[in-house]
């Protein structure tokens, strides 16, 4: 009898634990996101941005590949746990292609008064007649310089209209004066250097990223960039976030994602200036980054997910997201006057970058699905071979163009801006 009593006690205890776990899962919404993966950003999301939401949210940041795999396999298995998916525009195509996302036209109608940027709303349809995701937040890549570097700006150069050749001259002046290479790029293993080549360098010099990948213009662009690289801090190949070398003083001039520069701007706003990316022969190539919120088909609690979308797109929450995690609002909102100086500097630089008459915005890759990673690899390898390994530019461009062509043909992805529209797969001339 004694033994039986213990078994019953154990069983009921286990049941209690299980039901508590189950109850918690049922009550809370699982919000999986490819954004805010750094631990500090995730903590600020949980503790500050989501604080006033009425309802329990479990916020889980994931890398791009596990994010896609998780949602796809849950939807395929018919057991969906993810209530809300947050990702970049380019994270959604594989989910759309697999029919894993619910349409959100009803949600968009509820949010009529939000004053979303119309460009973002139409991007959120992903080329379908229906709303696939609701715009969540935006960011882009800009430049930041230490004020000590400003005295070496070439004569007649203006930070807001800097050209690539002036940037080179500037970095050369700094090197001559200090004996050190003080220009920096995030070319480390988790850095976003490939976005620089795809969205800034190529469009500025060729008004294209795919079609004219191996053009004569691209060849002279790489030669020019290689000579600029003489003045780049060689530790750039280990930099993932440029805010750290900027703060430590290893680098005086840097390009990076605004979210990866924010610590420098926030901690020492008086030491740094933020300014738009340089201008090339075709204008100022730059890459706006749009993140959106989507609901997987069969989401366990759609109404909570919709409520969370409504919450995250409120003007005050959009401003909190900016202050906490450095992503900018996607709705028209007046920024409060008491905004930290660093964030205001970033916001000004972004506005100057987007609004000038030489602006040449290009999208993150569209329609590459799981091949987005290999697309980036083409640009990373091209950079490494030409700039770091000193291989012949023409030969590298020709051989990497073959890789690029294979990816385009396998995914049948049509060209996206700034490449001219194509009927079939985007051609590599």
């Amino acid at each position: 009898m004694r033994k039986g009593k213990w078994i019953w006690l154990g069983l009921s205890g286990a049941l209690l634990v299980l039901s508590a776990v189950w109850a918690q899962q049922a009550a809370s919404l699982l919000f999986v996101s490819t954004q805010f993966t750094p631990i500090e950003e995730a903590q600020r999301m949980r503790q500050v941005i989501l604080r006033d939401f009425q309802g329990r949210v479990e916020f889980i940041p994931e890398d791009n590949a596990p994010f896609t795999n998780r949602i796809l396999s849950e939807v395929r298995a018919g057991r969906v746990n993810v209530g809300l998916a947050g990702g970049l525009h380019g994270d959604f195509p594989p989910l759309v292609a697999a029919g894993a996302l619910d349409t959100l036209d009803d949600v968009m109608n509820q949010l009529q008064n939000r004053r979303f940027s119309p460009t973002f709303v139409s991007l959120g349809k992903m080329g379908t007649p229906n709303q696939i995701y609701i715009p969540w937040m935006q960011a882009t890549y800009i430049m930041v310089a230490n004020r000590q570097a400003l005295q070496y700006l070439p004569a007649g150069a203006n930070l807001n209209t800097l050209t690539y050749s002036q940037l080179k001259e500037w970095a050369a002046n700094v090197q001559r004066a200090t004996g050190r290479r003080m220009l920096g790029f995030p070319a480390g293993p988790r850095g976003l250097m490939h976005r620089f080549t795809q969205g800034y360098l190529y469009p500025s010099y060729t008004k294209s990223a795919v079609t004219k990948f191996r053009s004569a213009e691209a060849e002279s662009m790489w030669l020019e960039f290689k000579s600029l690289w003489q003045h780049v801090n060689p530790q750039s190949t280990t930099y993932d976030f440029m805010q750290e070398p900027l703060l430590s003083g290893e680098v005086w001039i840097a390009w990076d994602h605004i979210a990866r520069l924010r610590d420098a701007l926030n901690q020492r706003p008086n030491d740094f200036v933020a300014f738009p990316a340089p201008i090339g022969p075709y204008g100022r190539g730059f890459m706006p980054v749009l993140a959106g919120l989507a609901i997987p088909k069969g989401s366990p609690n759609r109404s909570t997910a919709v409520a969370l979308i409504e919450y995250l797109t409120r003007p005050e929450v959009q401003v909190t997201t900016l202050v906490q995690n450095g992503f900018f609002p996607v709705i028209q909102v007046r920024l409060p006057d008491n905004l930290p100086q660093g964030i205001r500097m970033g916001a000004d630089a972004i506005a100057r970058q987007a609004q000038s008459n030489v602006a040449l915005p290009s999208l993150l890759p569209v329609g590459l699905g799981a091949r987005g990673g290999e697309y980036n690899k083409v640009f990373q390898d091209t950079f490494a071979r030409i700039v770091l390994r000193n291989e012949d530019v023409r030969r590298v461009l020709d051989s990497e163009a073959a890789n690029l062509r294979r990816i385009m043909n396998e995914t049948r992805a049509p060209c996206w801006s700034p490449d001219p529209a194509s009927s079939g797969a985007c051609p590599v001339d």
Partner: protein
Amino acid sequence: MRSERYIPYVLVLPSVVFLLFLFAWPLLEALLLSVRNSSGWTLEHFQRMAADLYFKDALKYTLLLTLTIVPLQVGLALGMALLLGSIAKGRDLFLYVWTIPLGISDLAAGIVWLAIFTERGYLNSFLQAVGVIQQPQLWLSYETPWMIFLAVVAAEVWRATAIVFVILVAGLQLIPKEYGEAAEVFGATPWQRFWKVTLPLLRPSLQVALILRTILALEVFAVVVALGGRNLPVLAGEAYYWYNAYQNPGVAAAYAVLILGISVAATLLYLRLMRTKQEAVG
């Protein structure tokens, strides 16, 4: 009691199930992943791996690192273990201090050494304060891969010598004192006693330590990433980039299978070269 015959099997069963579920099954899946694509069997993943920009360097550096680190660590650990044997007072203190790095994760170890070698790191601050250099020197740059290599060797030796050390200390303790004393009676010098008595009897422990360290050295990843980024490519790192950054599980699995193949070959080699006769173990 007939049932007692089954008890050992029942007791072993959970670990067998565990191994099958968490090792054998993923292993099989990885093998299949590396030789299949959407249309069937293929060698495409291995071809793409071999043709990749970083493949040759990754293979070269992984093997070079293993060949440098493992002998260094075994030599050091053997010396430390023998030293410990002749320490009478405070032996435990040395044992604990020497095994501290065991408790540190490899990424943390990499970051510790990065803090030393980076441009504004401890090494440069020290050299500048002493007056050896005027300006911070760049140590970990793609222009000087051998320096990154040395930094990785230093970090790995610092971090993982302890595991070899612990195995060898345990092995040394298993050797009965009588053998050494008998040799001494017959007039063997300390060197002869080490060479003819201790080392042969330590062979099983050495074998375990070598196999373990070689396999771990072939998988070296976090320390290299922290210190060199992609400037010093290694096989495990390439598998990670192909899976995570390029999202191509097939090529990532091909790298994993290659690491497995080299590890199995190294293990077989050790087992063959260091075969112990049953009676020698005592």
